[in-house]
């Protein structure tokens, strides 16, 4: 018996140490959501495809051809927003939010959710941007400059890229 028990003891000790270390790590921010992150990367690829299709501009007559794409993207980003807004911020993170340095970065009017779960608010901006783009396209058509800006900068695409980069950077960082 002794021969079989001895090697087990150090193994159990190592497992206990690992469990003790793993169980007691601190979490200050909401959890990473892999399914939603993958959905966001897919939505981003589809949005960039739409921007590419419309880069030369598009008339109101052509709108029906793109209507379903707009609605899928707006619906997809809205669903991701709803999922990520429901992630709880750990209580320790909420306490940290009350400290001066964090308040200074986030601003006095920011809520704990704005500051420590920034993504839903940015997704609101993306939904507003795509909705505006869809409505302009439907009502009067999209000039190329409004879609892609001038000299490769600006326009709806430039604004979208700022917003989606914020979302993907923060969400990828939460994978820890």
């Amino acid at each position, binding site marked *: 018996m002794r021969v079989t028990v001895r090697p087990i003891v150090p193994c159990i*000790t190592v497992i*206990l*140490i690992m469990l*003790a*270390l793993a169980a*007691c*790590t*601190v*979490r*200050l*921010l909401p959890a990473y959501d892999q399914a939603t992150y993958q959905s966001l990367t897919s939505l981003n690829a589809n949005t960039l495809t739409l921007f590419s299709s419309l880069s030369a501009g598009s008339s109101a007559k052509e709108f029906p051809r793109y209507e379903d794409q707009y609605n899928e993207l707006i619906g997809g980003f809205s669903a991701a927003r709803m999922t990520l807004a429901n992630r709880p911020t750990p209580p*320790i*993170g909420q*306490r*940290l939010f*009350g*400290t*001066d340095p*964090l308040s200074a*970065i*986030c*601003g006095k009017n*920011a809520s704990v959710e*704005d*500051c*420590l*779960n*920034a993504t839903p*608010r*940015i997704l609101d*901006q993306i939904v*507003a*941007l795509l909705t*505006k783009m869809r409505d*302009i396209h439907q009502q009067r058509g999209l*000039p190329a*400059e*409004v879609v892609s*800006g*001038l000299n490769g*900068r*600006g*326009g709806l695409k*430039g*604004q979208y*890229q*700022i*917003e989606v*980069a*914020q979302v993907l*950077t*923060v969400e990828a*960082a*939460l994978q*820890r």
Partner: protein
Amino acid sequence: MTLNIEKVTGDLISAVQSKAGQGWGQISGFVTTQSKMLANQGAWITESRINGALKTDDELFNFFVDQLKDSVESLAHAVAELAVLTIEETWNAVVGVLWGAINTALKGAGLGFLPMPSAPPQA
């Protein structure tokens, strides 16, 4: 078995340098990229308002200005979130090194584990 203070100190410094360095590197790179994008967007809005599609379109001009303003605020929130993440990772790394060393020494002396602290001290 005693705790090797010199080794633990070195391990702690390495853990802090590594985690804080990685965190700062990520925040710095992110802010640099975002600043360029925001500056480019601001430049286009200005150019277009003077002599482009936004020249006679007040509604769209205001929409782009509001979006840009919101993005600046969102950048601040994203930076705050990344900074807190760096604090979290640094804390966990330091506690892991220190409590790991203490518990290894206690185990060597045939004693029980010291429970790890569960939260940073409140400010």
